């Protein structure tokens, strides 16, 4: 199985490590520079949301990222053990509503082909994101 697993602390200074991994993995998988950048932003936004919402900006909590290259897609899963997110309340804000904040979910949903929030496990949350490989959609 083609997979990468990384665990970082919930300190925002480590977000760039996730970004670097995702960008290079996307390029290895055949995504363009632009697509790689977009995937990078989406995953970083998702991890930032974990820090802000699941961990309330605590810096020493675990964030797990696992990436799998499947036949038709690159799948990226983020897991945390923080406060459970109310899946029903996760939504993109209206873009006409120009205000600071609330853009992360919109960016994730605009970029990824698959976005699944799951808080059914005993602890924390899991977000599965996937992007179909070039020519596989």
């Amino acid at each position, binding site marked *: 199985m083609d997979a990468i697993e990384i665990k970082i602390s919930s300190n925002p*200074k480590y*977000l*760039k490590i996730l*970004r670097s991994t995702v960008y290079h993995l996307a390029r290895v998988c055949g995504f363009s520079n632009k697509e790689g950048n977009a995937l990078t932003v989406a995953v970083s936004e998702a991890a930032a949301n974990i820090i802000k919402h699941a961990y309330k900006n605590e810096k020493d909590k675990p964030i797990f990222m696992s990436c799998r290259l499947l036949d038709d897609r690159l799948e990226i899963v983020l897991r945390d053990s923080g406060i459970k997110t109310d899946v029903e309340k996760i939504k993109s804000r209206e*873009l006409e509503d120009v205000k600071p904040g609330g853009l*992360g979910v919109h960016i994730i949903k605009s970029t990824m082909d698959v976005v699944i929030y799951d808080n059914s496990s005993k602890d924390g949350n899991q977000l599965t994101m996937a992007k179909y490989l070039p020519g596989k959609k």
Partner: protein
Amino acid sequence: MIKVNITEKDSATILEIYGEVDLYSSPEVRKVLLQLVNDETAVIIVNLNNVTYIDSSGVATLVEGLQEMGKYSGKLKLTNLRDAVRHVFELSSLDKVFEIHNTLEDAMRS
């Protein structure tokens, strides 16, 4: 690490940012920007030429600056956006909200 330089040129204040603007570094940018806003700086040009990455917290910081400046009819302009940075503004449809210029000279002239 993020670095923010402030220079004055003609009647504009140029805020030049170096590095990645994300959840970690955007508070520093916000602090500098809002200080200029508190001083009611008339024109701020944010030069993003050396910004290699920006996330929603960075964009939100600029939105906040834009809105606060609007209260005293100040102008916030952006210039020299790299493709990856411009893409984030486009994704959030904020490329239509900001005054964005290709070059610093264009921003100075407008």
